[in-house]
């Protein structure tokens, strides 16, 4: 004869039937939560809300079960792309050691993909990374092994991510600073920055004529009257720069002056930066086609007082100007605008300004330099273009400040490094 069910068992069964009325499971003992979870699965009652309920309990057994059974929350939103998940690497430069909340917040968007986490070689503490991701972690020993020590290419601070770009074997790279979290759009929906960057990279860019309705390939949009038809196919988009809500990417003097200013304006647009027009490309939230422009993102400009806050760096700005010049020369596109990320408050702009203000001054030389760079017709590959820019930098800026001479050398070393180390899929041409 079957034993009659215990009171506990009946209660759990009842709970399964009433899951829609339950808001919080964290007060339940571990073994009951596990039992409830298994019975929920058996009853076919697991949906996203219920899954979130169980995850919110924070119980290790629940996480183990989720991993073991390969249960995944749906990605929001699902933008139709022709990209396969295995064509993408998400590269995170770890400037801080505890990545737990960062990774957990991004989990719904990141968990589909392979991640490369690169630890700032100056960081002493062990990295803390939560479970449940498909990732590779690189630290100083790896860098020494791959790159050797006799190179002026630097991977310290925010530039550590470039090592990830170098060793990646994927076509597309998405990179976000470790103090950025998913943003919400004005309707309250979480922005899937990854999917959005992919959309930007896989739809054409239109650098030769400005479309006043912004991205003509966006849903509900198109080219306006007066836009030449021959320019409507567009060109390949090589780089997608996203933006930031809350702490925008201002320099230290600006943020110090407007201490309370936070960016709350969500501009619902993506647009192509016109050819010939230079732009400060922030490294905080970017994505690019590694196969097409990989070598052009250069870890080259290291400021004398460079630090661990973006206010104390200009490496991404230099890199971005190089990429734009190369893209303009090779007929590739650079988009800017969506997606947004939420950049958390961190650091003190006044302290940064006291420590490092040269960067701001150097831009007075850097921008006119890049505006004047003319690449010869014979430079038809990205590597050739970068070499030309490096040589021009050495010639025209080398004597102004030693930081430029070092940057030029780093660029040349980087191209050599890229040629010897980097994996480029043989099936796809450089441009």
């Amino acid at each position, binding site marked *: 004869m079957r034993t009659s069910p215990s009171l506990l068992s009946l209660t759990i069964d009842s709970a399964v039937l009433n899951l829609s009325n339950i808001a919080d499971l964290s007060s339940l003992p571990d073994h009951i939560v596990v039992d409830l979870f298994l019975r929920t699965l058996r009853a076919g009652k697991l949906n996203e809300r219920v899954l979130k309920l169980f995850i919110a309990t924070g119980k290790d057994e629940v996480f183990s079960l989720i991993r073991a059974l390969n249960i995944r929350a749906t990605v929001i939103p699902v933008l139709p792309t022709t990209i396969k998940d295995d064509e993408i690497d998400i590269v995170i430069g770890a400037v801080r050691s505890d990545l737990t909340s960062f990774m957990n917040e991004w989990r719904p968007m990141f968990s589909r993909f392979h991640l490369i986490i690169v630890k700032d070689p100056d960081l002493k503490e062990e990295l803390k990374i939560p479970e449940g991701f498909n990732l590779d972690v690189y630290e100083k020993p790896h860098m020494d092994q791959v790159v050797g020590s006799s190179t002026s290419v630097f991977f310290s601070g925010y530039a550590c991510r470039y090592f990830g770009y170098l060793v990646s074997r994927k076509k597309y790279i998405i990179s976000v600073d470790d103090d950025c979290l998913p943003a919400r759009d004005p309707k309250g929906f979480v922005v899937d920055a990854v999917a959005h960057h992919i959309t930007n990279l896989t739809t054409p860019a239109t650098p030769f004529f400005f479309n*006043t309705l912004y991205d003509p390939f966006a849903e*509900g949009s198109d080219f*306006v*009257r007066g836009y030449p038809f021959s320019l409507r196919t567009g060109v390949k988009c090589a780089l997608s720069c996203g933006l930031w809500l809350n702490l*925008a990417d201002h*320099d230290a003097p600006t943020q110090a002056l407007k201490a309370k200013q936070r960016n*709350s*304006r969500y501009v619902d647009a993506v647009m192509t*930066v016109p050819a010939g027009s230079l732009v400060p490309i922030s490294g905080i939230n970017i994505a690019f086609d590694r196969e097409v422009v990989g070598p052009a993102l250069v870890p080259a400009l290291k400021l004398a007082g460079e630090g661990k806050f973006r206010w104390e760096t200009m490496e991404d700005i230099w890199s971005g100007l190089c990429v734009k010049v190369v893209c303009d020369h090779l007929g590739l596109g650079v988009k800017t605008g969506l997606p947004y990320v939420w950049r958390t408050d961190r650091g003190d702009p006044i302290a940064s300004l006291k420590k490092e203000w040269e960067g701001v001054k150097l831009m*007075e030389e850097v921008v006119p330099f890049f505006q004047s760079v003319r690449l010869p017709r014979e430079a038809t590959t990205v590597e050739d273009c970068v070499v030309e820019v490096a040589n021009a930098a050495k010639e025209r800026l080398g004597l102004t400040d030693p930081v430029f001479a070092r940057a030029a050398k780093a660029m040349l070393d980087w191209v050599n490094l890229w040629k010897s180390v980097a994996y480029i899929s043989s099936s796809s041409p450089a441009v």
Partner: protein
Amino acid sequence: MAEPATATEAAAPAVPQLKDELDIVIPTIRNLEFLEMWRPFFQPYHLIIVQDGDPSKTIKVPDGFDYELYNRNDINRILGPKASCISFKDSACRCFGYMVSKKKYIFTIDDDCFVAKDPSGKAINALQQHIKNLLSPSTPFFFNTLYDPYREGADFVRGYPFSLREGVPTAVSHGLWLNIPDYDAPTQLVKPLERNTRYVDAVQTIPKGALFPMCGMNLAFDRELIGPAMYFGLMGDGQPIGRYDDMWAGWCTKVICDHLGLGVKTGLPYIYHSKASNPFVNLKKEYKGIFWQEEIIPFFQQAVLPKDCTTVQKCYIELAKQVKDKLSKVDPYFDKLAEAMVTWIAAWDELNPTGAAAALPNGKAK
């Protein structure tokens, strides 16, 4: 779903900015009923109505507006033989209004454009936003990824050189449209139901060297800085092309602005565009333009103005010369257009002699 605003009273500013320095130019062939909706925003300003089509028809202007109205007879009388440069049966005739105005700023709007609502539901005072755009600098030499740095809550991003942060004077403010977007005929035919519902909360400077399609539906400019370049060409009756008036003016204007170091902004404000014109009629008008623009765009992209062209008029005459040299081979129309461009400048200078007193009274309504 975009809808026009209804509660415009509440949004009208207490003190209308530039009320004695700005004229509103409106071309019309139908009626001016749309002005009722704009009344709280427009009433403080002087209107210049350019009546297209049959001059014997009376166009009623709603009570309470201070205006001057010109029909074809007036245009012929005032310009004499030079009236040939002003189009007939096309909204391009509006540029006559620019010429005859005595003010520093012009705002022009089509008679099928109404007050739009922002995402919070508030009525948008398009004129006020245009004025803000024109009174703050532009930044054409380096792209700011956070768009207009002079807007409330925005600024220049890291990496933007401080020496470029003063910007240059803004010559043109190009607004956008919710509901019926400004598509060409082929796109309208393929997507007859598409409506623009995306409110993009940004103003930005179009970088130097980049051309754009300038739409005349919702446009403001500094007449003193760029007025003579705003010639809307030969369109409509007796001409092989239509719906390229504002495009032509926009390309000329941008080339000249780039040469003289002036800025062109695009983005906010939005108006609500209510009428979708007939795409088949549009196709007939635009047809030649669709082919010609393939030649016209490279022409403007490569146009170089000599250093001694230091005024808008000089730049424009030089452009007219280049149009005759390089585009006549596309079609004899461009010969005529080049001549009309020269006539336009002559007429402009006649009506706007330099050294004339700054404060001239408005033209009187008839």
